[in-house]
């Protein structure tokens, strides 16, 4: 069975600084997808960034980038130039085809950006 682990329940970062959120996963599959979702307070989860396992190049979306280490089964999220609006819960998620593309989530990291 697949599992996703986020070992940092809470983190804080000063505005304009860089922060890295950790995620590790376990799977025996070779083809899968990884995601980081952001959930602001009292708002729905929105996709931050995605990574296809077959792609060696790390995904980037503006200030957000990942460090995908397939052999180590690690998928960390780096947020550069942190902004107050980045304050949220961040979930790492894994999916592969198992009859459906259901997500397996980590427990989340609560990030607070400090002014």
């Amino acid at each position: 069975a697949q599992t996703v682990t986020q070992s940092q329940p809470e983190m804080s970062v000063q505005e304009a600084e860089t922060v890295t959120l950790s995620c590790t996963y376990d799977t025996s599959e070779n083809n899968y997808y990884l995601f980081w979702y952001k959930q602001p307070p009292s708002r729905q989860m929105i996709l931050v960034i995605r990574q296809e396992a077959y792609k060696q190049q790390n995904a980037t979306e503006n200030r957000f980038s990942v460090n995908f280490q397939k052999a180590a089964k690690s998928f960390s999220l780096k947020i550069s130039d942190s902004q107050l609006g980045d304050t949220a819960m961040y979930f790492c998620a894994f999916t592969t085809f198992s009859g459906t593309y259901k997500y397996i989530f980590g427990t989340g990291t609560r990030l607070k950006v400090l002014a």
Partner: protein
Amino acid sequence: EPEVTQTPSHQVTQMGQEVILRCVPISNHLYFYWYRQILGQKVEFLVSFYNNEISEKSEIFDDQFSVERPDGSNFTLKIRSTKLEDSAMYFCASNAGTSVSYNEQFFGPGTRLTVL
């Protein structure tokens, strides 16, 4: 931009009562999901739904749970006889199911269910 919506935002019920949680997925999406998050725990998959039938369900999704898409727009989760341990945030999600969607799921804001 289209969004997944859920109603109600908060539902309080007595143990043993039936509840129906409602979701309106994005209109052209084909795959629908329910997840739940017990306070302080991880978000867990409950069920997926495609082409008017369940495509996968977890061990959590026992006979007390059912889903349906009654009218082509709503997607509902029914809990027949609620237990205290059903208290959780319930998230609905949908996915376009196209090759360009990269399996991205779009989530609703959640319904907080409190069973007393």
